[in-house]
């Protein structure tokens, strides 16, 4: 069974999804980071495929992506790293990347390769739901890969229902109208939006991401959804001095 689906079957609250950019800080850190996150009890790992033009991302992820590309990261290297990580862990692994990367690799080849090395699902923020249905839904279903669509405070109810229907892993709830990596406490307006979503009784699990960087944000997200996604804050922690495993342990102890 798909590991993402299995996770949500057995656990419906306090899910922690941690994002990092593959190949950063060092090209070969990917496997160690996945292993360590798994070892520390993180529920889900979201591996970012570094991209030259990450439109939805703030400075932290932009810089980590650029650094990873300078380190020599390529999709085939990433696939090999995930394959290696799979020897050590059964944690659900999701790939996050941009549609252009998938097109250039060849969409079917890309998804088949991802499945083969042990990836469980995808987040492709610039792949519209309409195109997914027309061109890729069957392939995702045949391969047993999940997809998660994003919703934001500006997303209409009709569209949220569509995202609920089409998302096969979880719905990625973007916490506010912004790019990734913002700071500041969660506002009343955001809580209202989370309440609105809760009241919709969606079928898919929801994870709240964007601007979640500390324990308080994590707790708020877990109150309103099945869990939280943390990215930029984790990447900043990886960029600090010290041993990789210590940095990861120390960061996670500050979250839950």
């Amino acid at each position, binding site marked *: 069974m798909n590991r993402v689906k299995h996770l949500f079957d057995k656990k419906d609250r306090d899910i922690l999804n941690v994002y990092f950019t593959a190949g950063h800080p060092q090209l070969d850190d990917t496997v160690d980071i996945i292993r360590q996150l798994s070892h520390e009890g993180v529920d889900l790992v979201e591996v970012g495929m570094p991209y030259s033009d990450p*439109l939805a991302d703030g400075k932290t992820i932009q810089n980590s992506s650029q650094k990873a590309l300078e380190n020599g990261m390529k999709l085939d290297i990433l696939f090999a790293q995930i394959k290696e990580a799979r020897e050590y862990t059964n944690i659900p692994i999701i790939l996050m990347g941009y549609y*252009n990367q998938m*097109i*250039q690799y060849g969409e079917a080849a890309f998804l088949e390769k991802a499945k083969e090395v042990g990836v469980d699902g995808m987040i492709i923020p*610039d792949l*519209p739901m309409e195109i997914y249905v027309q061109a890729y839904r069957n392939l995702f279903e045949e391969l047993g890969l999940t997809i998660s669509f994003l919703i*934001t405070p500006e*997303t209409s109810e009709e569209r949220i229902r569509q995202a609920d229907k089409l998302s096969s892993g979880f719905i990625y709830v973007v916490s506010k*109208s912004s790019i990734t990596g913002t700071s500041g406490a969660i506002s009343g307006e955001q809580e209202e939006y989370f309440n609105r979503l809760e009241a919709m009784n969606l079928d898919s699990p929801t994870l709240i991401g964007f601007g979640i960087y500390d324990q308080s944000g994590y707790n708020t997200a877990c109150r309103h959804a099945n869990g939280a996604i943390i990215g930029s804050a984790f990447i900043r922690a990886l960029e600090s001095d010290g041993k990789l495993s210590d940095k990861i342990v120390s960061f996670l102890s500050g979250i839950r």
Partner: protein
Amino acid sequence: MSYSVNEQGFYGEFGGAFIPEMLHANIEHLSKNYLKIIREAEFREQFDALLKDFVGRPTPLYHAKRLSQRYNTKIYLKREDLNHTGAHKINNTIGQILLARKLGKKRIIAETGAGQHGVATATVCALMGVQCIVYMGKTDIARQAPNVARMRMLGAEVRPALSGSQTLKDATNEAIRDWINNPSDTHYIIGSVVGPHPYPDMVARFQSVISEEMRWQLQEHEGREYPDIIIACVGGGSNAAGAFYHYLEDDRVCLIAVEAAGLGIDSGASAATSLLGTKGIIHGSKTLLMQTEDGQIVEPYSISAGLDYPGIGPQHAHLIQSGRAQVLHATDQEALDAALELARIEGIIPALETAHALAVLDKLEFKEDEIVVINLSGRGDKDLAAYIEYLENPSGRHKSDH
């Protein structure tokens, strides 16, 4: 075959709106309203009045007699260089600022490469008393100082794009990110026929005034509405889109798009997107773009800051792929030579972008009675530094700033 956009925002297989969900509400709102707004009589009146009294339209269609003699044909120059702010760019910014006002937006953002679109945007924002923020690559800020000064004098804030290669594509990324962060009060004025639908169609419509005037001007000069050949340079492709617009379905007219070949198509330093590019997504649009095998977008090169965009408007990708438009290329050196030639025999100093269109005259064979229109998209004041260097060393220009 249709060369116009379909209801889903595609030109053949190109176009569409491949955007993160955060932009969806804004783009959908624009898609649903832009045609309705720009067809309103009140909008048309305001747009036409500003183009006439503020921009200085119609621009002349000038019969360049000495240039015609040199190439043994009949060449007209569509004088977009005579527009206020020095290029065709302002046709679009006038249209979009009126649209932004209709949409109730209070804050304008834009991207700029060479600074021409930035200046045109800053100008219309000053005209309307609206806040204006222009994103410009840090590298471009350094090499286009006069235009940066113009934007600041017009009251715009110029924000350096520090990400990636710090040029036009990164300035565009930064503007898109700003829009994601400020969805409700902000309108993004894109400067070319690129970006997610409806931008390519909307910008082409605002630029279509170029070929609309060409029709009646040719009728006056030649007794017929169409030329045999139209030549325009293409980076993103807004001036070409405007010059081609009313002739797309007219097979009698040969459309020629000229891309920048930089130091040469095979030199590794060019902006020959349609030739070297492959299908993919850039700035929310499916088109041809220059990228690595791994799908990383590549920084192009041209001496002209207005042509070094790694993609091409989706309509142009469709026109080229379907064979409706022909693509030719001009190197830095050929463009410089062509600029000097036009200056010396017609008394017009063209923009470096435009000089690429002029440079292909040498590569074409004309009949004596053919009517050729070259879209003279901009004037060369902004390029004086490059021209001075060239005049001092006419054949030995090296890629010094890249």
